[in-house]
């Protein structure tokens, strides 16, 4: 099984680290590779879109001519895990909490709307325990860094986790979007959920 991590900008190697540990501890025979070109994209069975600045990643991805290829692949069913900025890239609708409507090109593959920087600026960033029934009963530490939240645009989007009234993790077909950063913890259960999806 080959898992790609979109390798333009952001917390890329933290996912690589987590996947490598997951492969060895759960006895998966797998490989992690960075995806920056179409030839690399064609090799992977699933892809992680890491956190970073969604505007930056979007611009470079466009410049490298990867946007439409990646969009087609995901629409054809390539499993994808989008984290924070990665989830912003997947969304069909994007607004910013303070600045409001802003023109931003995304992959536009998942029926979610995101509100960027929903909780405020970096000084408002936080960690908290979440409950994700889809995984198991044990709490999952959610690390929220200038995090977005999701609104659901279609009935077949399943909410994986909520924080108070807002949605912070969602699932649709073979796409997972999370607003927090599992790669900043030692808890790989969300990555494991993703791997199981890739395996199917």
């Amino acid at each position: 099984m080959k898992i790609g991590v979109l390798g333009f900008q952001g917390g890329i190697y933290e996912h690589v680290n987590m996947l490598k540990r997951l492969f060895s501890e759960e006895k998966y025979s797998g490989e992690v590779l960075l995806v920056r070109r179409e030839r690399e994209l064609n090799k992977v069975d699933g892809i992680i879109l890491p956190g970073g600045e969604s505007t930056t990643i979007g611009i470079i991805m466009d410049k490298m001519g990867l946007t439409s290829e990646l969009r087609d692949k995901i629409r054809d069913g390539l499993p994808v895990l989008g984290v924070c900025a990665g989830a912003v890239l997947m969304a069909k609708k994007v607004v910013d909490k303070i600045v409001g409507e802003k023109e931003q090109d995304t992959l536009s593959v998942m029926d979610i709307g995101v509100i960027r920087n929903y909780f405020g600026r970096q000084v408002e960033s936080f960690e908290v325990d979440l409950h994700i029934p889809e995984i198991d009963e044990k709490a999952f530490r959610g690390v929220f860094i200038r995090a977005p939240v999701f609104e659901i645009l279609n009935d077949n989007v399943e909410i994986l986790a909520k924080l108070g009234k807002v949605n912070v993790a969602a699932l649709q077909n073979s796409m997972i979007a999370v607003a927090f950063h599992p790669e900043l913890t030692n808890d790989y259960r969300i990555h494991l959920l993703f791997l199981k999806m890739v395996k199917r």
Partner: protein
Amino acid sequence: MERPLKFSCDRYYSVSFEDIVDFFYRLAELADRLREEGRFFEYFPRKPGDRLDIPVKATVRVKHGFPIFQKGGVCMDVTNVEQAYIAEEAGAVSVMVLDKLPYDVRKTGGVARMADPKIIENVMNSITIPVMAKVRIGHYTEAMILERLGVDMIDESEVLTPADEVRHINKWLFKVPFVNGARDLGEALRRISEGASMIRTKGEAGTGNVSEAVKHMRKIMGGIKKIRNMDMEDRIRRAREMGISSELLDLTIRIGRLPVVNFAAGGIATPADAALMMWLGADGVFVGSGIFKSSDPLERAKAIVLATSMWSDPDVVLEAQKMISESKSMVGIDIKSLKPEEMLQSRGV
């Protein structure tokens, strides 16, 4: 080019982010116990509980985590909202708001201070990417003002006139993460001990000359390699000379890089400069005067963003370099023409 590119191309490090964060809490544990007994000045982070039913802000994890998402990107110096819009459009991962660009700080002379909070606020309300701002070294009150204002990161910077000639801010006391400049491994690890969440090379700001940034990045990365081969007793001696705990030095050697995000800064003016710094091991770059002191800021900013992200691919770096024209680069200053008192990098060691 093949061999050295392969050598530092992989930024993978084998210790997880959480384990690195936990290290800082463990260092603080003894101090914590003493503090509970009321015997210790607060100079370390406080560990949140193992179960968090209500959100906790400003933990080491969220402070050290913020710069993780700046990696592979470019932070651009701006002095007003118009420049901030250009930076955002070009694909910057953040902007640094200043009163004057470093080049102008040099020209004007006098005391350089924190930027006007009104301008910083205007920038914060106009763009979606993070906003950073600089404070003078050791100036607690400027830092408190910026924290209240809500900037995303504070640069305790030698580009401004130091407020304290010998001390830096105790950055563990703040909710907002800090970035500090460093010229070698000792400076970098001292700043991390003081609570910096991110390090950048000092270089020589406002010169458009990358040579000092190269020197500093080589010294940081080379310093790690050198100490790696030392006997334990020599390592302990080196830690003492640097003025840091030997545990922090051991962690650095174990992961083969600084335990926080490490950017390049000071004199970067072209896409090739940015790619060079990435090749030397930087996680990303700060560009100060290089963009808005050139005569092609938007194109140059776009080109530097591309070269920083794709630095390991010579074809793309070439394409980025073609996007700008050398005749439009800032003229720059030869470091050798600067008098020792004109060097900004020797402020705050």
